[in-house]
């Protein structure tokens, strides 16, 4: 069951990448980044079954960082929305060269 789980993890990561590239809604892009984090977590859990309990600890840490990232990222999105009245990332071009 290890190889199918790793292939599923690769598929989820690729779909998350697709979402990050294709969508312009900042919140959906965030959701897709969470999807990629979950794909990595799945690979960690699958491998930890055969290497030791440490993999599950890393997953615990990744989940905590994901929670912190979601809180800060959503606060930034709210702050930007107040300024531009949109969350379309094409409109956030002040820092573009």
């Amino acid at each position: 069951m290890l190889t199918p789980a790793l292939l599923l993890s690769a598929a989820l990561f690729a779909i998350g990448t697709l979402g990050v590239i294709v969508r312009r809604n900042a919140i959906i892009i965030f959701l897709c980044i969470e999807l990629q984090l979950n794909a990595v977590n799945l690979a960690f859990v699958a491998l930890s079954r055969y290497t030791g309990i440490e993999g599950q600890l890393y997953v615990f840490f990744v989940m905590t960082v994901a929670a912190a990232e979601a809180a800060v990222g959503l606060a930034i999105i709210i702050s930007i929305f107040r300024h531009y009245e949109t969350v379309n990332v094409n409109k956030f071009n002040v820092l573009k060269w």
Partner: protein
Amino acid sequence: MTDILFILFAVVAVGGAIGVVIGRSPVASLLFMVATLASVAGIYVLFEAHFLAAIQVLVYAGAIMVLFLFVIMLLNLGHDYRADLRYGSWSLLSLVVVGLTAGVLMQGFSGDLEADLLENGAAAAAAIDAAVIEKGAVGVIADPLFTDYVVAFELIGLLLLVAIVAAVVLAKPREAGKD
């Protein structure tokens, strides 16, 4: 039985992930994401990671997704689907990038990895099972967390504090004339 459950969870996870990407409204994308997260939690149970499965459902599908839902409802989004997708050369680029990502990852993940790991992996799996029986599903995670990884654990607590303060500061509306 395990294989059937795995296939079921995998199909739901991939379907939900595709739904996240092509979902018309942000709320629909979010609900697809919850389906994906729940089925990934199911796969965690199949790999005997019961504590992480519970955390996945409680923290991820519960708390973080509800936070996203709050923000979507607060900003009243989801009326401009056409402006939300990139077309033309972007879709081509995305296909190339995603194809490369999936190809490279699957190349690395298939092959002799399973044979290599299974050789001494059975012993590791048996050790984990014995530890779970001895300490319980939570204790087997908590024991190394509070001994070998205690510095990382303290730092992650600090990170959460910083994130809370940052979120409050960033999301607070600026008062006029006080900037």
